[in-house]
């Protein structure tokens, strides 16, 4: 599915991501974890085609950087930390049509674009937002719209950069439940940047812990998120306790 081999990203001459290697299988969700500045968002942006990278990033055996422009939307769905569409004077429904037809040369969108837009709004439970403009929506509603825009092209790889940062508790679960269900049902690969370790623990099959742009640990999320490793990477003592059959990570205090 998604395989990275020695992927590095440089910005203004300094290396932000160094030799990252990872693999996300079909139907799997991987969390990218680490402190601020660890290179998580930079790596996701590079995979989305917004920054150049060195190394190899393969999706279904094809190099991501070499995907034909016309096929990128069908391969990649990306939710940015700060989605650019928020300022656009377009309705949510228009944005969904645009997302599917951004390279179209004809005038009218094909009939299936309308159906897909309806379907995705219905699937996320936000049909009521179709006629609204993003600037009129709350932060949480915008996150849901951003996810709808990322999913409407039925991508093979879903890249999410802090998708729950503006959501209340219930909507965090709703959005990640949706992502998890969609990922498994459609056999896609999902790579998401998260800061909430409990959400990562609950929703990510595998996790990668980045530090200074390098992979500090990766594997099954339960194996990666140990108290010792969290203390080393985040500098915070955490208790990890079983709650209702799940692991709950409770930050206790800064390491001294």
């Amino acid at each position, binding site marked *: 599915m998604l395989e990275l081999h020695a992927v590095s990203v440089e910005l203004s001459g300094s290396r932000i991501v160094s030799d990252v290697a990872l693999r996300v299988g079909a139907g799997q969700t991987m969390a990218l974890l680490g402190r601020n500045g660890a290179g998580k968002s930079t790596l996701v942006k590079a995979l*989305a*085609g*917004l920054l150049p990278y060195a190394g190899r990033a393969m999706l279904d055996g094809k190099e991501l950087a070499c995907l*034909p*422009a*016309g*096929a*990128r*939307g069908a391969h*990649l769905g*990306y939710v*940015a930390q700060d*989605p*650019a*569409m928020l300022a*656009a*004077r*377009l*309705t949510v*429904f*228009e*944005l969904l*049509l*645009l*997302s599917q*037809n*951004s*390279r*179209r*040369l004809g*005038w009218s969108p094909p009939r299936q674009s*309308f159906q897909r*837009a*309806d379907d995705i*709004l*219905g699937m*996320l*439970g*936000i*049909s*009521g*937002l*179709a*006629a609204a403009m993003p600037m009129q929506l709350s932060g949480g*509603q915008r996150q*849901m719209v951003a996810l709808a825009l990322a999913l409407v*092209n039925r991508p093979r790889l879903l890249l999410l950069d802090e998708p729950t940062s503006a959501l*209340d508790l*219930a*909507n965090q*679960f*709703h959005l990640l439940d949706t992502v998890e269900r969609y990922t498994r049902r459609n056999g896609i690969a999902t790579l998401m940047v998260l800061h909430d370790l409990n959400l990562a623990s609950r929703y990510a099959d595998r996790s990668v812990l980045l530090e200074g742009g390098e992979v500090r640990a990766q594997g099954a999320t339960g194996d990666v998120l140990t108290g010792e490793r969290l203390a080393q990477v985040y500098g915070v003592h955490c208790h990890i306790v079983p709650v209702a059959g799940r692991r709950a990570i409770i930050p206790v205090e800064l390491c001294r």
Partner: protein
Amino acid sequence: MSPVESYAAVPVSDSRSHYQRQVAHKLALLAVLVSLCALAMALDLAIGSETLSLHQVVQGLLHPQQVAPEIRVVLWDIRLPVTLTAAIAGAGLALSGSLMQTVLDNPLAEPFTLGISAAAGFGAALAIVFQASALAFLPLPAEFIVTGNAFLFSLLTVICIGLFAARTGLAPEMVVLLGIAVHFIFTAMLGMAQYLADADQLQALVFWMMGSLMKTGWRKVEILFVIVGAAVPVLGLLSWRITALRGFGSQAAVLGVAVKHLRMALLLLAALMASSITATIGVVGFIGLVAPHMARMLVGEDQRFSLALTAACGALVLTLASIFSKTVFPGAVLPIGMVTSLLGVPFFLWLLLGHRARRF
């Protein structure tokens, strides 16, 4: 129960029919604007030192042989080139402004943001004051020496800025600052040319800079028609991509839009239209700044409609300005560049305040 259930109150089929109603509404607005343009053009043809009736105008246009020779001459040889220049130049300046605002990601950008007006002015000054032609190697008629110089300097200026920005990876806001620097350089050189000019040359140069539709002729109408007319279908084909650029910015690249190439192509199209229009009628400000905003207020960001409406707004405003320039002081024709701002600002404010009142 879904936590976002409250968002899902609208039935799915309603979102599609709402979109279709929106499209019908936008097409109706476009039809109204185009009709107003046609009416304004007819009035512009009718009004002048000898006012014609609308019937005479229509008769003279459709059946030239059936009207008196003097009416035919007034219509076809004097007024029609001016009216067509106003409509085409208005549409072209408006489109150019819209593209500049998109490319530079700046709502205050206009066709002259990157120094086109000052560069054209300097090119014209070289021809008027020093009788120097950058196109001396071409067998151009005398009437095209000033126009050719202005066109070449303004177009080359934008191409150089665009290539420099592309090569160095400058952000849009840095490109705007570079354009401002170039503007000041050409303004200084234009000032130097004015300082060295004699009284007649100075008068010619100042009048050229004010912008006037009276400099036009059928040949210039043909050139403008070809340039703006060629840009329109290209923009029509690119309208989804331009909307993606406006809607998603650089993130449009995720959807396969070649953002850098698109920005460069739009910059060249904008420069080509603005340079040819400025070289033909001089500096006409305001239209390129506000016509795109008018269109966006009326139909939003979908460039399939917004660009068409932008062109119609630009054509309407410049044609109305042409009428106004002939009627405010009977017997005299004011420079069009002065009139566009006087006429357009109140209309724009009315639209802006009306729009705010509806939103809040």
